[in-house]
Protein backbone atom coordinates (compact mmCIF):
# COMPACT_ATOMS: atom_id res chain seq x y z
CA UNK A 1 0.00 0.00 0.00
CA UNK A 2 2.73 2.37 1.07
CA UNK A 3 4.73 1.42 -1.97
CA UNK A 4 1.88 2.31 -4.29
CA UNK A 5 1.52 5.60 -2.50
CA UNK A 6 5.20 6.30 -2.87
CA UNK A 7 5.13 5.48 -6.54
CA UNK A 8 2.20 7.78 -6.98
CA UNK A 9 4.08 10.55 -5.27
CA UNK A 10 7.09 9.90 -7.45
CA UNK A 11 4.92 10.04 -10.51
CA UNK A 12 3.41 13.25 -9.21
CA UNK A 13 6.86 14.65 -8.68
CA UNK A 14 7.86 13.75 -12.21
CA UNK A 15 4.94 15.55 -13.77
CA UNK A 16 5.31 18.47 -11.42
CA UNK A 17 8.93 19.10 -12.21
CA UNK A 18 9.12 21.91 -14.74
CA UNK A 19 10.44 20.88 -18.11
CA UNK A 20 10.97 24.43 -19.34
CA UNK A 21 11.66 27.45 -17.17
CA UNK A 22 12.17 31.05 -18.10
CA UNK A 23 13.44 33.50 -15.51
CA UNK A 24 13.64 37.24 -15.85
CA UNK A 25 13.81 36.86 -19.61
CA UNK A 26 14.40 40.06 -21.54
CA UNK A 27 15.74 41.38 -24.81
CA UNK A 28 16.50 44.89 -25.92
CA UNK A 29 16.51 45.89 -29.60
CA UNK A 30 18.29 49.22 -29.81
CA UNK A 31 16.51 51.14 -27.07
CA UNK A 32 13.35 49.09 -27.24
CA UNK A 33 12.63 46.60 -24.49
CA UNK A 34 10.80 44.12 -26.69
CA UNK A 35 10.52 41.61 -23.89
CA UNK A 36 11.17 42.34 -20.25
CA UNK A 37 11.18 40.24 -17.11
CA UNK A 38 9.21 37.35 -18.54
CA UNK A 39 9.08 34.30 -16.34
CA UNK A 40 7.09 31.14 -16.42
CA UNK A 41 7.55 27.45 -15.89
CA UNK A 42 6.06 24.76 -18.00
CA UNK A 43 5.36 21.39 -16.43
CA UNK A 44 5.53 18.07 -18.19
CA UNK A 45 2.58 17.47 -20.46
CA UNK A 46 1.13 20.83 -19.62
CA UNK A 47 -0.58 22.92 -22.26
CA UNK A 48 0.16 26.56 -21.69
CA UNK A 49 -1.06 29.53 -23.68
CA UNK A 50 0.88 32.69 -24.37
CA UNK A 51 -1.56 35.42 -25.32
CA UNK A 52 -1.63 39.15 -25.70
CA UNK A 53 -2.45 41.90 -28.20
CA UNK A 54 -0.54 42.24 -31.47
CA UNK A 55 3.04 43.31 -30.97
CA UNK A 56 3.10 42.23 -27.33
CA UNK A 57 6.27 40.21 -27.89
CA UNK A 58 4.87 36.69 -28.01
CA UNK A 59 6.75 35.53 -31.06
CA UNK A 60 9.86 37.24 -29.69
CA UNK A 61 9.57 35.00 -26.63
CA UNK A 62 9.45 32.00 -28.97
CA UNK A 63 12.51 33.26 -30.77
CA UNK A 64 14.31 33.63 -27.45
CA UNK A 65 13.36 30.13 -26.36
CA UNK A 66 14.58 28.60 -29.63
CA UNK A 67 17.84 30.51 -29.72
CA UNK A 68 17.02 32.69 -32.72
CA UNK A 69 17.72 35.67 -30.47
CA UNK A 70 20.04 35.67 -27.49
CA UNK A 71 18.32 37.22 -24.49
CA UNK A 72 19.86 40.35 -23.02
CA UNK A 73 18.88 39.27 -19.53
CA UNK A 74 17.55 36.18 -17.86
CA UNK A 75 17.85 32.47 -17.97
CA UNK A 76 16.17 29.63 -19.88
CA UNK A 77 16.35 26.12 -18.53
CA UNK A 78 15.29 22.93 -20.23
CA UNK A 79 14.95 20.15 -17.65
CA UNK A 80 17.09 22.16 -15.29
CA UNK A 81 19.91 22.70 -17.80
CA UNK A 82 20.58 26.16 -19.13
CA UNK A 83 20.20 26.42 -22.90
CA UNK A 84 21.41 29.98 -23.05
CA UNK A 85 23.74 30.74 -25.93
CA UNK A 86 22.98 27.52 -27.75
CA UNK A 87 22.25 27.60 -31.48
CA UNK A 88 18.76 26.93 -32.78
CA UNK A 89 19.58 23.51 -34.18
CA UNK A 90 21.23 22.50 -30.90
CA UNK A 91 18.17 23.56 -28.93
CA UNK A 92 16.00 21.53 -31.28
CA UNK A 93 18.22 18.54 -30.60
CA UNK A 94 17.93 19.11 -26.87
CA UNK A 95 14.17 19.03 -27.11
CA UNK A 96 12.39 22.25 -28.08
CA UNK A 97 10.69 22.15 -31.46
CA UNK A 98 8.47 24.79 -32.96
CA UNK A 99 6.10 25.75 -35.73
CA UNK A 100 5.87 29.15 -37.36
CA UNK A 101 3.20 31.81 -37.54
CA UNK A 102 3.38 31.88 -41.33
CA UNK A 103 3.78 28.27 -42.37
CA UNK A 104 7.35 27.37 -43.22
CA UNK A 105 7.32 24.00 -44.87
CA UNK A 106 9.93 22.63 -47.24
CA UNK A 107 7.53 23.35 -50.08
CA UNK A 108 9.11 21.44 -52.92
CA UNK A 109 9.95 18.40 -50.84
CA UNK A 110 7.56 15.53 -50.34
CA UNK A 111 5.41 15.34 -47.22
CA UNK A 112 7.43 12.35 -46.12
CA UNK A 113 10.73 14.17 -46.66
CA UNK A 114 9.53 17.13 -44.62
CA UNK A 115 9.21 14.82 -41.65
CA UNK A 116 12.40 12.92 -42.44
CA UNK A 117 14.46 16.13 -42.44
CA UNK A 118 13.52 16.70 -38.82
CA UNK A 119 14.53 13.12 -37.99
CA UNK A 120 17.96 13.68 -39.54
CA UNK A 121 19.51 14.68 -36.22
CA UNK A 122 18.66 11.30 -34.71
CA UNK A 123 20.23 9.39 -37.57
CA UNK A 124 23.82 8.32 -37.50
CA UNK A 125 25.15 7.03 -40.80
CA UNK A 126 27.93 9.13 -42.25
CA UNK A 127 27.95 10.97 -45.56
CA UNK A 128 30.31 8.31 -46.89
CA UNK A 129 27.95 5.52 -45.83
CA UNK A 130 25.17 7.34 -47.63
CA UNK A 131 27.19 7.76 -50.80
CA UNK A 132 28.47 4.19 -50.82
CA UNK A 133 25.09 2.77 -49.84
CA UNK A 134 26.50 0.83 -46.90
CA UNK A 135 24.14 -1.40 -44.88
CA UNK A 136 23.78 1.30 -42.21
CA UNK A 137 22.27 3.59 -44.87
CA UNK A 138 19.61 1.09 -45.91
CA UNK A 139 18.86 0.03 -42.36
CA UNK A 140 18.45 3.53 -40.98
CA UNK A 141 16.54 4.80 -43.99
CA UNK A 142 14.07 1.93 -43.76
CA UNK A 143 13.61 2.47 -40.03
CA UNK A 144 13.15 6.21 -40.44
CA UNK A 145 10.64 5.79 -43.23
CA UNK A 146 8.55 3.52 -41.06
CA UNK A 147 8.74 5.96 -38.18
CA UNK A 148 7.87 8.90 -40.38
CA UNK A 149 4.86 7.12 -41.86
CA UNK A 150 3.69 6.25 -38.38
CA UNK A 151 3.89 9.90 -37.40
CA UNK A 152 2.09 11.00 -40.55
CA UNK A 153 -0.73 8.57 -39.87
CA UNK A 154 -1.35 10.30 -36.53
CA UNK A 155 -2.21 13.38 -38.58
CA UNK A 156 -4.02 11.39 -41.29
CA UNK A 157 -1.41 12.43 -43.79
CA UNK A 158 -0.12 8.96 -44.64
CA UNK A 159 -1.91 8.93 -48.00
CA UNK A 160 -0.25 12.20 -48.95
CA UNK A 161 3.28 11.04 -48.12
CA UNK A 162 4.46 11.32 -51.73
CA UNK A 163 2.83 14.70 -52.46
CA UNK A 164 4.79 17.89 -52.50
CA UNK A 165 4.16 19.85 -49.32
CA UNK A 166 3.04 22.94 -51.23
CA UNK A 167 0.21 21.00 -52.86
CA UNK A 168 -1.49 20.21 -49.56
CA UNK A 169 -4.54 22.23 -48.53
CA UNK A 170 -3.92 24.87 -45.89
CA UNK A 171 -5.22 22.92 -42.90
CA UNK A 172 -3.07 19.92 -43.76
CA UNK A 173 -0.03 22.13 -44.19
CA UNK A 174 -0.52 23.32 -40.61
CA UNK A 175 -0.78 19.72 -39.50
CA UNK A 176 2.32 18.75 -41.42
CA UNK A 177 4.25 21.52 -39.72
CA UNK A 178 3.25 20.16 -36.34
CA UNK A 179 4.16 16.65 -37.49
CA UNK A 180 7.56 17.91 -38.59
CA UNK A 181 8.13 19.56 -35.22
CA UNK A 182 7.18 16.31 -33.47
CA UNK A 183 9.54 14.37 -35.71
CA UNK A 184 12.40 16.09 -33.90
CA UNK A 185 11.23 14.16 -30.82
CA UNK A 186 10.85 17.21 -28.60
CA UNK A 187 10.04 17.53 -24.92
CA UNK A 188 8.50 20.92 -25.48
CA UNK A 189 6.43 21.86 -28.49
CA UNK A 190 6.04 25.55 -29.33
CA UNK A 191 3.09 26.33 -31.59
CA UNK A 192 2.89 29.82 -33.05
CA UNK A 193 -0.75 30.54 -33.88
CA UNK A 194 -1.66 27.00 -34.88
CA UNK A 195 -5.31 27.88 -35.51
CA UNK A 196 -4.65 30.94 -37.66
CA UNK A 197 -6.73 30.86 -40.80
CA UNK A 198 -8.75 27.84 -39.75
CA UNK A 199 -12.51 27.61 -39.73
CA UNK A 200 -14.36 26.63 -36.51
CA UNK A 201 -14.58 22.95 -37.46
CA UNK A 202 -10.88 22.78 -38.23
CA UNK A 203 -10.10 24.63 -35.01
CA UNK A 204 -12.13 22.15 -32.97
CA UNK A 205 -10.36 19.31 -34.69
CA UNK A 206 -6.98 20.93 -34.02
CA UNK A 207 -7.83 21.15 -30.31
CA UNK A 208 -8.38 17.41 -30.22
CA UNK A 209 -5.18 16.82 -32.15
CA UNK A 210 -3.10 18.87 -29.75
CA UNK A 211 -4.51 17.05 -26.75
CA UNK A 212 -3.85 13.76 -28.48
CA UNK A 213 -0.28 14.79 -29.24
CA UNK A 214 0.29 15.71 -25.62
CA UNK A 215 -1.02 12.37 -24.38
CA UNK A 216 0.66 10.28 -27.01
CA UNK A 217 4.06 11.91 -27.27
CA UNK A 218 4.22 13.18 -23.67
CA UNK A 219 5.21 16.67 -24.70
CA UNK A 220 4.54 19.94 -22.99
CA UNK A 221 2.91 22.47 -25.29
CA UNK A 222 3.37 26.22 -25.26
CA UNK A 223 1.18 27.97 -27.78
CA UNK A 224 0.49 31.44 -29.05
CA UNK A 225 -3.04 31.99 -30.22
CA UNK A 226 -5.53 34.76 -30.80
CA UNK A 227 -8.61 32.59 -31.02
CA UNK A 228 -9.93 32.92 -27.46
CA UNK A 229 -12.37 30.01 -27.57
CA UNK A 230 -9.46 27.85 -28.67
CA UNK A 231 -7.19 29.16 -25.93
CA UNK A 232 -9.82 28.85 -23.22
CA UNK A 233 -10.79 25.40 -24.43
CA UNK A 234 -7.38 23.84 -24.40
CA UNK A 235 -4.93 25.68 -22.14
CA UNK A 236 -4.45 24.74 -18.54
CA UNK A 237 -2.48 27.83 -17.78
CA UNK A 238 -2.24 31.20 -19.47
CA UNK A 239 0.43 33.88 -19.56
CA UNK A 240 -0.68 37.27 -20.84
CA UNK A 241 1.86 39.61 -22.39
CA UNK A 242 1.45 43.29 -23.15
CA UNK A 243 4.25 45.58 -24.28
CA UNK A 244 6.73 42.80 -23.59
CA UNK A 245 5.74 42.36 -19.95
CA UNK A 246 3.60 39.79 -18.21
CA UNK A 247 0.41 41.47 -17.06
CA UNK A 248 -1.35 38.38 -15.83
CA UNK A 249 -0.88 34.69 -15.47
CA UNK A 250 -3.01 31.89 -14.12
CA UNK A 251 -5.82 29.57 -15.07
CA UNK A 252 -8.03 30.59 -18.01
CA UNK A 253 -10.78 31.54 -15.54
CA UNK A 254 -8.54 33.83 -13.53
CA UNK A 255 -7.14 35.47 -16.61
CA UNK A 256 -10.51 35.98 -18.24
CA UNK A 257 -11.75 38.07 -15.34
CA UNK A 258 -8.50 39.94 -14.74
CA UNK A 259 -9.18 43.68 -15.21
CA UNK A 260 -5.67 44.31 -16.57
CA UNK A 261 -6.21 41.76 -19.31
CA UNK A 262 -9.57 43.22 -20.22
CA UNK A 263 -8.00 46.66 -20.35
CA UNK A 264 -5.15 45.43 -22.57
CA UNK A 265 -7.53 43.82 -25.04
CA UNK A 266 -10.36 46.31 -25.03
CA UNK A 267 -8.48 49.43 -23.98
CA UNK A 268 -8.80 50.78 -20.43
CA UNK A 269 -9.39 54.34 -19.38
Amino acid at each position, binding site marked *: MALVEKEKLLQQDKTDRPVLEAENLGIVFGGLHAVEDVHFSLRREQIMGLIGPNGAGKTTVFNLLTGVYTPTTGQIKLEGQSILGKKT*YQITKLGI*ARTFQNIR*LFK*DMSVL*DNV*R*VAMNQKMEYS*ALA*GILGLPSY*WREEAAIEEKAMELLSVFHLENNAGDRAKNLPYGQQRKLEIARALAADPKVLLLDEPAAGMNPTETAELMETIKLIRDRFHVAVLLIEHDMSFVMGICEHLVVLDYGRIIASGSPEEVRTNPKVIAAYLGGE
Partner: protein
Amino acid sequence: MTNQKKTGLIPKSKLLSYAVNAALLLITYVLFFVLIANGTINRYTSGIMTTMFINIILTVSLNLVSGFLGQLVLGHAGFMSVGAYTAALFTLYSGLPITIAFPIGIVLAGVVAAVFGVIIGVPALRLRGDYLAIITLGFGEIIRVIILACDFTGGAKGLRGIPTILPQGSDATSLSLAKYSYVFWLAVLTVVIIWAFVRSRHGRAVIAIREDEIAAEASGVHTTYYKLFAFVMAAFFAGVAGSLYAHHIGVLDPSKFNFDYSVEILLMAVLGGLGSITGSIIAAVALTILPEFLRGFEDYRMLIYAVILIIVMLFKPSGLMGQHEFSLSGILARLSSKKSGALKKGKGE
Protein backbone atom coordinates in the same frame (compact mmCIF):
# COMPACT_ATOMS: atom_id res chain seq x y z
CA MET B 1 8.54 -6.26 -36.83
CA THR B 2 10.51 -9.49 -37.40
CA ASN B 3 10.65 -9.12 -41.16
CA GLN B 4 12.16 -5.72 -40.48
CA LYS B 5 15.29 -7.60 -39.43
CA LYS B 6 16.57 -7.88 -42.96
CA THR B 7 16.31 -4.19 -43.73
CA GLY B 8 20.09 -4.01 -43.98
CA LEU B 9 19.66 -5.33 -47.51
CA ILE B 10 19.03 -3.32 -50.62
CA PRO B 11 15.46 -3.62 -51.90
CA LYS B 12 15.22 -5.92 -54.92
CA SER B 13 13.64 -3.37 -57.25
CA LYS B 14 16.48 -0.93 -56.53
CA LEU B 15 19.08 -3.62 -57.11
CA LEU B 16 17.54 -4.38 -60.49
CA SER B 17 17.55 -0.77 -61.64
CA TYR B 18 21.15 -0.35 -60.45
CA ALA B 19 22.13 -3.41 -62.46
CA VAL B 20 20.32 -2.12 -65.56
CA ASN B 21 21.95 1.29 -65.27
CA ALA B 22 25.38 -0.22 -64.76
CA ALA B 23 24.91 -2.45 -67.78
CA LEU B 24 23.79 0.49 -69.94
CA LEU B 25 26.79 2.51 -68.84
CA LEU B 26 29.14 -0.31 -69.68
CA ILE B 27 27.56 -0.77 -73.10
CA THR B 28 27.81 2.96 -73.82
CA TYR B 29 31.42 2.98 -72.71
CA VAL B 30 32.38 -0.02 -74.84
CA LEU B 31 30.47 1.33 -77.84
CA PHE B 32 32.31 4.65 -77.90
CA PHE B 33 35.58 2.93 -77.02
CA VAL B 34 35.28 0.77 -80.12
CA LEU B 35 34.22 3.72 -82.28
CA ILE B 36 37.27 5.70 -81.20
CA ALA B 37 39.56 2.71 -81.49
CA ASN B 38 38.59 1.91 -85.09
CA GLY B 39 38.71 5.54 -86.13
CA THR B 40 34.99 6.09 -86.78
CA ILE B 41 35.19 8.90 -84.26
CA ASN B 42 38.13 11.04 -85.23
CA ARG B 43 40.47 12.88 -82.92
CA TYR B 44 38.60 16.14 -83.27
CA THR B 45 35.27 14.62 -82.27
CA SER B 46 36.75 12.64 -79.40
CA GLY B 47 38.30 15.89 -78.18
CA ILE B 48 34.83 17.43 -78.06
CA MET B 49 33.58 14.36 -76.22
CA THR B 50 36.29 14.87 -73.63
CA THR B 51 35.23 18.49 -73.17
CA MET B 52 31.65 17.31 -72.89
CA PHE B 53 32.41 14.94 -70.03
CA ILE B 54 34.44 17.63 -68.26
CA ASN B 55 31.46 19.95 -68.62
CA ILE B 56 29.20 17.29 -67.16
CA ILE B 57 31.41 17.11 -64.06
CA LEU B 58 31.40 20.91 -63.76
CA THR B 59 27.67 21.30 -64.28
CA VAL B 60 26.57 18.50 -61.99
CA SER B 61 28.87 19.69 -59.21
CA LEU B 62 27.69 23.29 -59.58
CA ASN B 63 24.12 22.03 -59.49
CA LEU B 64 24.81 20.62 -56.03
CA VAL B 65 25.39 24.14 -54.74
CA SER B 66 23.14 26.19 -56.97
CA GLY B 67 20.36 23.66 -57.49
CA PHE B 68 20.19 21.57 -54.33
CA LEU B 69 21.63 23.97 -51.78
CA GLY B 70 20.07 26.92 -53.62
CA GLN B 71 23.03 29.27 -53.43
CA LEU B 72 24.08 31.26 -56.45
CA VAL B 73 27.78 30.69 -57.12
CA LEU B 74 29.67 32.54 -59.83
CA GLY B 75 33.17 31.31 -59.11
CA HIS B 76 33.10 27.72 -60.26
CA ALA B 77 35.76 28.37 -62.90
CA GLY B 78 37.96 29.63 -60.06
CA PHE B 79 37.86 26.26 -58.31
CA MET B 80 38.41 24.59 -61.65
CA SER B 81 41.53 26.66 -62.29
CA VAL B 82 42.91 25.79 -58.84
CA GLY B 83 42.53 22.12 -59.72
CA ALA B 84 43.91 22.56 -63.21
CA TYR B 85 47.10 24.28 -62.06
CA THR B 86 47.56 21.95 -59.09
CA ALA B 87 47.41 18.85 -61.26
CA ALA B 88 49.47 20.35 -64.07
CA LEU B 89 52.24 21.54 -61.75
CA PHE B 90 52.26 18.18 -60.04
CA THR B 91 52.63 16.15 -63.21
CA LEU B 92 55.22 18.62 -64.51
CA TYR B 93 57.50 18.66 -61.50
CA SER B 94 56.81 15.55 -59.39
CA GLY B 95 59.20 13.46 -61.49
CA LEU B 96 56.89 10.47 -61.27
CA PRO B 97 55.99 8.60 -64.46
CA ILE B 98 52.88 10.17 -65.90
CA THR B 99 50.72 7.05 -65.58
CA ILE B 100 51.17 7.31 -61.81
CA ALA B 101 51.43 11.09 -61.52
CA PHE B 102 48.17 11.78 -63.35
CA PRO B 103 45.79 9.85 -61.04
CA ILE B 104 47.55 11.35 -58.03
CA GLY B 105 47.30 14.76 -59.67
CA ILE B 106 43.54 14.34 -60.12
CA VAL B 107 43.01 13.57 -56.44
CA LEU B 108 45.38 16.33 -55.42
CA ALA B 109 43.54 18.80 -57.66
CA GLY B 110 40.26 17.91 -55.98
CA VAL B 111 41.71 18.17 -52.50
CA VAL B 112 43.40 21.53 -53.08
CA ALA B 113 40.25 22.94 -54.68
CA ALA B 114 38.29 21.64 -51.68
CA VAL B 115 40.70 23.40 -49.32
CA PHE B 116 40.07 26.61 -51.24
CA GLY B 117 36.38 25.80 -50.93
CA VAL B 118 36.71 25.79 -47.15
CA ILE B 119 38.71 29.02 -47.14
CA ILE B 120 36.17 30.81 -49.31
CA GLY B 121 33.14 29.04 -47.92
CA VAL B 122 33.57 29.84 -44.25
CA PRO B 123 33.24 33.61 -44.65
CA ALA B 124 31.13 33.60 -47.83
CA LEU B 125 28.40 31.24 -46.69
CA ARG B 126 27.32 33.64 -43.98
CA LEU B 127 25.75 35.50 -46.87
CA ARG B 128 23.21 34.29 -49.33
CA GLY B 129 21.70 35.12 -52.68
CA ASP B 130 23.24 38.00 -54.59
CA TYR B 131 25.84 38.67 -51.92
CA LEU B 132 27.22 35.17 -52.05
CA ALA B 133 27.25 35.36 -55.84
CA ILE B 134 29.35 38.52 -55.70
CA ILE B 135 31.80 37.07 -53.20
CA THR B 136 32.34 33.93 -55.27
CA LEU B 137 32.68 36.09 -58.36
CA GLY B 138 35.35 38.08 -56.56
CA PHE B 139 37.12 34.91 -55.57
CA GLY B 140 37.21 33.66 -59.14
CA GLU B 141 38.78 36.90 -60.30
CA ILE B 142 41.31 36.95 -57.46
CA ILE B 143 42.48 33.45 -58.31
CA ARG B 144 42.88 34.41 -61.95
CA VAL B 145 44.86 37.50 -61.11
CA ILE B 146 47.10 35.60 -58.70
CA ILE B 147 47.79 32.98 -61.36
CA LEU B 148 48.63 35.80 -63.77
CA ALA B 149 51.01 37.39 -61.29
CA CYS B 150 52.90 34.28 -60.23
CA ASP B 151 55.99 32.93 -61.95
CA PHE B 152 55.55 29.28 -61.19
CA THR B 153 52.16 29.26 -62.92
CA GLY B 154 53.66 30.71 -66.07
CA GLY B 155 51.89 34.03 -65.62
CA ALA B 156 50.12 35.51 -68.60
CA LYS B 157 52.07 33.28 -70.99
CA GLY B 158 50.26 30.36 -69.48
CA LEU B 159 51.57 27.03 -68.28
CA ARG B 160 53.06 25.06 -71.15
CA GLY B 161 54.35 21.59 -71.72
CA ILE B 162 51.88 19.81 -69.48
CA PRO B 163 52.61 16.13 -70.15
CA THR B 164 50.06 14.03 -72.01
CA ILE B 165 48.48 11.36 -69.86
CA LEU B 166 50.32 8.52 -71.59
CA PRO B 167 54.11 8.13 -71.74
CA GLN B 168 55.76 9.89 -74.64
CA GLY B 169 55.74 7.97 -77.86
CA SER B 170 52.22 6.61 -77.44
CA ASP B 171 50.13 6.90 -80.58
CA ALA B 172 47.26 9.35 -80.94
CA THR B 173 44.48 6.76 -80.84
CA SER B 174 45.56 5.21 -77.55
CA LEU B 175 45.90 8.70 -76.13
CA SER B 176 42.32 9.49 -77.19
CA LEU B 177 41.16 6.23 -75.68
CA ALA B 178 42.96 6.90 -72.40
CA LYS B 179 41.47 10.40 -72.18
CA TYR B 180 38.05 9.05 -73.01
CA SER B 181 38.28 6.35 -70.35
CA TYR B 182 39.39 8.83 -67.70
CA VAL B 183 36.75 11.46 -68.36
CA PHE B 184 33.97 8.95 -68.90
CA TRP B 185 34.45 7.11 -65.63
CA LEU B 186 35.20 10.22 -63.62
CA ALA B 187 32.03 11.82 -64.93
CA VAL B 188 30.12 8.67 -63.98
CA LEU B 189 31.73 8.68 -60.56
CA THR B 190 30.85 12.35 -60.01
CA VAL B 191 27.24 11.82 -61.01
CA VAL B 192 26.86 8.69 -58.89
CA ILE B 193 28.43 10.30 -55.83
CA ILE B 194 26.35 13.46 -56.03
CA TRP B 195 23.22 11.49 -56.87
CA ALA B 196 23.72 9.21 -53.85
CA PHE B 197 24.57 12.15 -51.63
CA VAL B 198 21.39 13.99 -52.55
CA ARG B 199 19.34 10.94 -51.67
CA SER B 200 20.92 10.43 -48.28
CA ARG B 201 19.91 12.12 -45.03
CA HIS B 202 22.67 14.65 -45.66
CA GLY B 203 21.26 15.49 -49.06
CA ARG B 204 17.80 15.96 -47.57
CA ALA B 205 19.28 18.41 -45.08
CA VAL B 206 20.92 20.31 -47.95
CA ILE B 207 17.66 20.50 -49.91
CA ALA B 208 15.80 21.58 -46.78
CA ILE B 209 18.18 24.54 -46.50
CA ARG B 210 17.28 25.55 -50.05
CA GLU B 211 13.59 25.30 -49.24
CA ASP B 212 13.67 27.28 -46.01
CA GLU B 213 16.83 27.91 -44.06
CA ILE B 214 15.07 29.09 -40.91
CA ALA B 215 12.76 26.10 -40.82
CA ALA B 216 15.68 23.77 -41.52
CA GLU B 217 17.61 25.17 -38.58
CA ALA B 218 14.51 24.86 -36.39
CA SER B 219 14.19 21.24 -37.50
CA GLY B 220 17.63 20.48 -36.10
CA VAL B 221 19.68 20.85 -39.30
CA HIS B 222 23.14 22.28 -38.68
CA THR B 223 22.79 24.68 -41.60
CA THR B 224 26.31 26.15 -41.54
CA TYR B 225 27.87 22.71 -41.62
CA TYR B 226 25.74 21.40 -44.46
CA LYS B 227 26.15 24.53 -46.54
CA LEU B 228 29.90 24.26 -46.24
CA PHE B 229 29.78 20.54 -46.92
CA ALA B 230 27.93 20.96 -50.22
CA PHE B 231 30.07 23.94 -51.20
CA VAL B 232 33.32 22.07 -50.57
CA MET B 233 32.08 18.96 -52.33
CA ALA B 234 31.28 21.04 -55.41
CA ALA B 235 34.70 22.69 -55.24
CA PHE B 236 36.33 19.26 -55.08
CA PHE B 237 34.71 18.08 -58.28
CA ALA B 238 35.40 21.38 -60.01
CA GLY B 239 39.06 20.78 -59.14
CA VAL B 240 38.89 17.28 -60.59
CA ALA B 241 37.37 18.70 -63.77
CA GLY B 242 40.20 21.23 -63.88
CA SER B 243 42.87 18.52 -63.69
CA LEU B 244 41.23 16.69 -66.59
CA TYR B 245 40.99 19.89 -68.59
CA ALA B 246 44.66 20.73 -68.03
CA HIS B 247 45.82 17.37 -69.34
CA HIS B 248 43.34 17.35 -72.15
CA ILE B 249 44.41 20.69 -73.60
CA GLY B 250 48.05 20.54 -72.52
CA VAL B 251 48.34 24.31 -72.08
CA LEU B 252 46.81 26.41 -69.32
CA ASP B 253 45.89 29.99 -70.02
CA PRO B 254 44.61 31.92 -66.98
CA SER B 255 42.22 33.97 -69.13
CA LYS B 256 40.28 30.76 -69.86
CA PHE B 257 39.03 30.65 -66.27
CA ASN B 258 37.37 34.03 -66.27
CA PHE B 259 33.94 35.18 -65.21
CA ASP B 260 32.47 34.21 -68.59
CA TYR B 261 33.40 30.60 -68.04
CA SER B 262 31.76 30.53 -64.59
CA VAL B 263 28.63 31.94 -66.17
CA GLU B 264 28.79 29.36 -68.94
CA ILE B 265 28.78 26.55 -66.38
CA LEU B 266 25.95 28.20 -64.46
CA LEU B 267 24.08 28.53 -67.73
CA MET B 268 24.30 24.79 -68.31
CA ALA B 269 23.04 24.09 -64.80
CA VAL B 270 20.14 26.53 -65.15
CA LEU B 271 19.21 25.34 -68.62
CA GLY B 272 19.14 21.72 -67.48
CA GLY B 273 17.12 22.59 -64.43
CA LEU B 274 18.45 23.60 -61.02
CA GLY B 275 17.95 20.60 -58.81
CA SER B 276 18.02 18.01 -61.58
CA ILE B 277 21.18 15.96 -62.07
CA THR B 278 20.00 14.38 -65.29
CA GLY B 279 18.98 17.85 -66.48
CA SER B 280 22.54 19.04 -65.90
CA ILE B 281 23.92 16.14 -67.90
CA ILE B 282 21.56 16.78 -70.80
CA ALA B 283 22.34 20.51 -70.80
CA ALA B 284 26.09 19.97 -70.57
CA VAL B 285 25.98 17.59 -73.50
CA ALA B 286 23.68 19.80 -75.55
CA LEU B 287 25.53 23.05 -74.94
CA THR B 288 28.90 21.44 -75.70
CA ILE B 289 27.73 19.92 -78.95
CA LEU B 290 25.42 22.70 -80.12
CA PRO B 291 28.14 25.23 -81.03
CA GLU B 292 29.90 22.52 -83.02
CA PHE B 293 26.79 21.74 -85.03
CA LEU B 294 26.33 25.41 -85.70
CA ARG B 295 29.81 25.79 -87.15
CA GLY B 296 28.34 25.69 -90.63
CA PHE B 297 26.60 28.98 -89.98
CA GLU B 298 29.78 30.71 -88.88
CA ASP B 299 28.66 34.31 -88.42
CA TYR B 300 25.28 33.46 -86.97
CA ARG B 301 26.58 30.75 -84.66
CA MET B 302 26.52 32.62 -81.36
CA LEU B 303 23.31 34.36 -82.35
CA ILE B 304 21.47 31.08 -82.87
CA TYR B 305 22.99 29.72 -79.66
CA ALA B 306 21.66 32.71 -77.74
CA VAL B 307 18.23 32.52 -79.35
CA ILE B 308 17.91 28.85 -78.39
CA LEU B 309 18.74 29.73 -74.79
CA ILE B 310 16.17 32.52 -74.75
CA ILE B 311 13.50 30.26 -76.19
CA VAL B 312 14.13 27.55 -73.60
CA MET B 313 14.01 30.08 -70.77
CA LEU B 314 10.82 31.64 -72.10
CA PHE B 315 8.94 28.40 -72.41
CA LYS B 316 10.52 26.43 -69.59
CA PRO B 317 11.91 28.87 -67.01
CA SER B 318 12.67 26.07 -64.56
CA GLY B 319 15.03 24.52 -67.11
CA LEU B 320 14.65 21.51 -69.35
CA MET B 321 14.06 19.06 -66.52
CA GLY B 322 12.87 21.38 -63.75
CA GLN B 323 13.57 19.55 -60.51
CA HIS B 324 12.68 16.21 -62.04
CA GLU B 325 15.02 13.38 -62.83
CA PHE B 326 15.05 11.25 -65.91
CA SER B 327 15.03 7.61 -64.93
CA LEU B 328 14.44 4.47 -66.90
CA SER B 329 12.53 2.77 -64.13
CA GLY B 330 10.33 5.86 -63.82
CA ILE B 331 9.50 5.72 -67.52
CA LEU B 332 8.89 1.99 -67.39
CA ALA B 333 6.60 2.42 -64.40
CA ARG B 334 4.71 5.15 -66.23
CA LEU B 335 4.37 3.06 -69.36
CA SER B 336 3.12 0.01 -67.47
CA SER B 337 0.65 2.09 -65.48
CA LYS B 338 -0.63 3.52 -68.75
CA LYS B 339 -1.01 0.06 -70.15
CA SER B 340 -2.96 -1.12 -67.15
CA GLY B 341 -5.48 1.60 -67.81
CA ALA B 342 -4.52 4.02 -65.04
CA LEU B 343 -3.49 6.72 -67.48
CA LYS B 344 -5.16 9.61 -65.74
CA LYS B 345 -2.00 11.20 -64.50
CA GLY B 346 1.57 10.55 -65.41
CA LYS B 347 3.18 13.52 -63.76
CA GLY B 348 4.02 12.75 -60.14
CA GLU B 349 7.65 12.63 -59.12
